[in-house]
């Protein structure tokens, strides 16, 4: 019985990780860049959600009205201003550039908001639903169902809209896409925007459940990387599945091993995946080599 509760907790937690990772994997699959500042976009949207509630008394979930477009724009700006000039540069330059952005944003937040841990005290935050003897935390349930919903939406977007198909096409073969008249730069920009916008939504959703502080993004982004690599770089379903798996691993190892060691477990998984199956569970074998030179 306890095991089932743990698994369910893990699934709910996995929803959070899935949400964060979908944006990251989309950006990687198309633009072929690892955005080390992805976590900081989350952090910014969390602060916005926090202030929505703390200053204005509004329901933080409504912050996605601002967060999605804002992060979308921020993502597009990052791509055009930071990544685009470095598209043909060796990959380590992109690493350094996004790491630099990450440092800048973390410390900007530190400077403006100070390092205090802030939390929202929502009335329904502690609410628990009981279903067949399993306890489901209400806000986490919202996150989980939202992540399913959003994944579905993104999937439908990619499958059925022209832009979505263009995004997929570019991820599969850039040269062919160019020869079809697709505007690569525009799609990169939009994809970066979407990926970042998704993280913006995630921020609004998880603020009721997590503390907000300048380095909160660092913790989440490393987990997101583990998820993305596990699921297969560039694969949406992979990111979703990977998120759920890592959530379960997190929950199970937190209970059976030690809460403070659970991160160790999935970093070990991370390194193991990178060694033995770098393409991940659902990724295309060889995908990890693409665009890496």
């Amino acid at each position, binding site marked *: 019985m306890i095991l089932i509760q743990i698994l369910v907790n893990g699934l709910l937690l996995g929803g959070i990780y899935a949400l964060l990772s979908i944006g990251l994997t989309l950006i990687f699959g198309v633009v072929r860049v690892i955005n080390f500042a992805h976590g900081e976009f989350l952090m910014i949207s969390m602060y916005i959600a926090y202030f929505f509630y703390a200053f204005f008394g509004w329901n933080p979930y409504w912050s996605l009205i601002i967060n999605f477009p804002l992060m979308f724009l921020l993502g597009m700006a990052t791509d055009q201003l930071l990544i685009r000039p470095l598209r043909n540069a060796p990959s380590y330059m992109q690493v350094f550039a996004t790491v630099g952005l990450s440092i800048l944003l973390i410390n900007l937040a530190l400077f403006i908001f100070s390092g205090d841990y802030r939390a929202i005290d929502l009335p329904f935050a502690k609410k628990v639903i009981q279903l067949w003897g399993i306890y489901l935390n209400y806000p986490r349930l919202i996150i989980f169902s939202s992540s399913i919903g959003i994944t579905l939406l993104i999937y439908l977007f990619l499958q059925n809209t022209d832009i979505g*198909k263009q995004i997929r*096409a570019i991820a599969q*073969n850039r*040269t062919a896409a160019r*020869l*079809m*008249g*697709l505007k690569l730069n525009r799609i990169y920009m939009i994809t970066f925007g979407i990926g970042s916008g998704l993280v913006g939504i995630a921020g609004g959703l998880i603020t009721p459940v997590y503390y907000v502080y300048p380095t909160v993004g660092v913790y989440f982004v490393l987990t997101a990387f583990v998820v993305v690599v596990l699921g297969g770089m560039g694969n949406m379903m992979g990111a979703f599945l990977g998120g759920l798996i890592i959530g379960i691993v997190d929950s199970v190892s937190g209970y059976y091993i030690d809460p403070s060691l659970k991160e160790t477990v999935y970093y070990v998984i991370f390194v193991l995946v990178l060694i033995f199956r770098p393409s991940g569970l659902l990724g295309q074998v060889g995908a990890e080599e693409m665009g890496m030179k």
Partner: protein
Amino acid sequence: MILLKLENLSVRYGDVLALREACVEIPEGMITSLVGANGAGKSTTLRAISGLVPCSHGSLYFEDRSIDPMSTDQRVELGLIQIPEGRLIFPYMTVGENLEMGSMTKRSRKERNENQERVMEMFPILREKKNQLASTLSGGEQQMLAIARGLMAKPRLLMLDEPSLGLSPLLVKEIFHTLKKINGQGMTILLVEQNVKQSLEIAHRGYVLENGRIILSAAAQDLLKSDHVRKAYLGL
């Protein structure tokens, strides 16, 4: 009239002058064939026309208008469509989706459905496998898909880079037959090929490239009969 003109076009890759002052004229409604040994510069020519690589010298004219400053997507919008070497279909998209990708330009988007019908008429196997992933198709079917995808873009000039590569002789025959048919319907074609005999047989005009230079240019029939081509390839 001359649909596409290359005037003293040179393309440089680093130090290599892959194409040296090439002058080519593609007449409308005809099949022009570009042949030459490996490394002679055939693919480079197509890449330059499509705008995938910059030209260091010379100019490109489409319908007497200079297209040098145009980007690849602008040239595609004009109707300069290339079927690349190796087909380069989108492996994890269905046949139908691949065809849709061919009609993303403003010009072709409007007629997407009619064009899709038309190409599936021409290549019935594509209709049959419409919802299958493109990677499951055989080599010959993929080549047909690539050509159909190109046709979806409403090309004014259809350029093919070594369509016979990796295909059995029977399939090659079929592909060339199809190309002749498409040309019969009025399409201007630029064909880059290693398979000299078959490509010169369906072409009206031919150019022979060697080491980046055009060394021969004549009516395709004349080239077929001459010893020149064999010399150029086998150095006799």
